[in-house]
């Protein structure tokens, strides 16, 4: 197989965008073309989860390829729940590695704030089992709440640990112009003050408002290319070196131990093996912290810390920028935002920025290996990516 590199990147603000879904997709694509210096692509993959349901827009890739004047390039929409972004990157990788194409554009785009918060939560809940979960009113925050309670009882994670994740990621997002939330929250403000229960009310006990990611609009783009193409453009050689994908039971209750995120563990293992690196080699990671507990759990499952010790590493400051393994320097889903179909591409965008050394104030020093974990469903479809700076 041929090696695959990132030739260009682009992103929109992950907040509320006041233009249509097609333009949310096209804008980062145009930025990525400008970044790479390329003018054409062979193929376009567009990751999106809710276009048909929320925006009344199906066949998104066909609309985007024409909107960007990239016809007659092939174009496909990729839907794999919240893991759509990394799944689309995987498709792009395979198209180039196989020799089928030389330059592929991968876009993730979502426009969720057209729906009100209740509708948005319900839309995301449609990825649960229709007869065994959804019909009983299960939502993703509800599943995460139950998961958190189990984790707390089993490993001693406390509300303070969850708040520490939120504070860290909000702090990181302060230096990210494109982040949804620019609120430098404190433990006192969301946990200890007399007003904390109103500032930070329970959403799905024990998860509170600041334990949950916002509903965001946003788009991000990566242009993938062969080594030959990279020789013609003057961009840093960031190689997409490893991809892993794994699934787990659709219903969370069918898992032997619901606190074990087996799909995360397996996807990460595959990705590291393919890249030829170990978790300890990773300089910077973007993990799928749709809920604060997930950053802690995923940091263990991917192999950064022993199972049940992620919160202890957090206490020691090892996941901060400047720590042993900085996690979510972008602000993560928690503060950067979570436009579901775009999230995986947004994570990769941040890692490429970090490996290029272009992340500004939130730059992780000497970043050589970057890792992303894009978590679909409630851990039933996970895609992990490993990037290496050459």
């Amino acid at each position, binding site marked *: 197989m041929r090696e695959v590199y990132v030739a260009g990147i682009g992103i929109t603000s992950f907040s509320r965008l006041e233009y249509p879904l097609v333009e949310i997709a096209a804008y980062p694509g145009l930025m990525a073309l400008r970044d790479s210096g390329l003018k054409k692509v062979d193929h376009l993959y567009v990751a999106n989860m809710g276009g048909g349901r929320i925006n009344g827009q199906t066949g998104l890739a066909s609309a985007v390829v024409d909107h960007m004047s990239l016809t007659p390039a092939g174009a496909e929409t990729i839907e794999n729940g919240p893991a759509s972004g990394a799944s689309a990157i995987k498709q792009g990788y395979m198209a180039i590695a196989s020799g089928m194409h030389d330059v592929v554009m991968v876009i993730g785009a979502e426009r969720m704030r057209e729906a009100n918060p209740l509708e948005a939560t319900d839309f995301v809940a449609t990825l649960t089992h229709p007869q065994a979960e959804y019909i009983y009113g299960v939502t993703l925050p509800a599943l995460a709440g139950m998961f958190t309670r189990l984790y707390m009882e089993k490993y001693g994670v406390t509300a303070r640990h969850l708040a520490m994740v939120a504070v860290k990621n909000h702090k990181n997002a302060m230096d990210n112009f494109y982040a949804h939330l620019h*609120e430098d929250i404190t433990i006192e*403000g969301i946990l200890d003050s007399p*007003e904390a229960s*109103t*500032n*930070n009310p329970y959403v799905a006990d024990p998860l509170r408002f600041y334990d949950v990611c916002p509903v965001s609009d946003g788009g991000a783009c990566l242009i993938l290319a062969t080594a030959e193409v990279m020789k013609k453009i003057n961009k840093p050689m960031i190689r997409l070196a490893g991809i892993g994908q794994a699934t787990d039971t659709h219903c969370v209750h069918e898992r032997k131990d619901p606190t074990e995120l087996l799909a995360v563990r397996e996807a990460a293992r595959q990705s590291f093996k393919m890249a030829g690196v170990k978790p300890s080699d990773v300089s910077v990671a973007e993990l799928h912290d749709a809920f604060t507990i997930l950053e802690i759990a995923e940091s263990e499952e991917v192999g950064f810390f022993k199972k049940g010790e992620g919160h202890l590493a957090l206490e020691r400051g090892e996941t901060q920028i400047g720590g042993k393994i900085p996690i979510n320097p972008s602000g993560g889903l928690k503060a950067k935002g979570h436009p579901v179909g775009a999230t995986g591409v947004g994570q990769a965008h941040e890692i490429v920025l970090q490996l290029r050394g272009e992340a500004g104030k939130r730059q992780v020093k000497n970043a050589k290996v970057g890792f992303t974990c894009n978590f679909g469903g409630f851990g039933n479809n996970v895609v992990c990516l490993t990037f290496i700076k050459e």
Partner: protein
Amino acid sequence: MSVDLEKILRPVDTPLPKFPAKYMTLANGQEMVVRQAERDEIPDILPHVEPLIHVERDFYNIVAARLYSELLAYYTYRVQDEYVLVAQIDGELAAIVNGRSVSPDVGMSYHTFSLRRGLRVGAHAFATKMEYHIDILKQKEVLIVAESGIGFRRWMIEYNLEKRFHIPHELGGCPSWSLTKELFDKARNTLVVGRRPVPEHLLAKAKAGILPPSDPPKGPEDLLAATRSMLDSTATSLIEMRRKQGGKIQ
């Protein structure tokens, strides 16, 4: 015979109890003081409201324009029984809420205006305004409308307001919603926060001067969004752009 026209034009205010200042800790750890603004402070507030008349996002433009006129009317005695509360963080103006007393039993909420976005600044200010009507003025209900989706979620949904659609609200004659004392009591433990007395140093800082907001709401920064909003039929963005460029406003 001479006539003092001002005596005819100026409504006679009913003496209303003053709002006792309070403070609260925000999610970012900062302390916000909410206090009643005196009439002679209005000229210090107006310059911070005016720029937002041109911010075409989340209805800041219309709310700022209406609030500006309400503050001016209060300052020049052209509205009866109005009050203004200001929320300040380190002296900076964070929110303005205002309304008026219609009768001993009924209050009329005018506007809730956040100059510091996020952190429930607006929500805390609104809750404080309701506290003023229900707990201090001892009114039975407050009539409310929302001009933005954010307002609708914050007031109508969070407080589960009752419909009073047969009563036109003073803001545009829109159908009113009502926060009754019973609804306020239900929300008291979850949505209404604040402590008294305000520590002297906080109150002194707040009263020393109303400082401009350091990060006021802005229009869309994204070029593409800005381009599209220029196509808006109100042309507000276009006017604002020309104003910034020093060009002639048509």
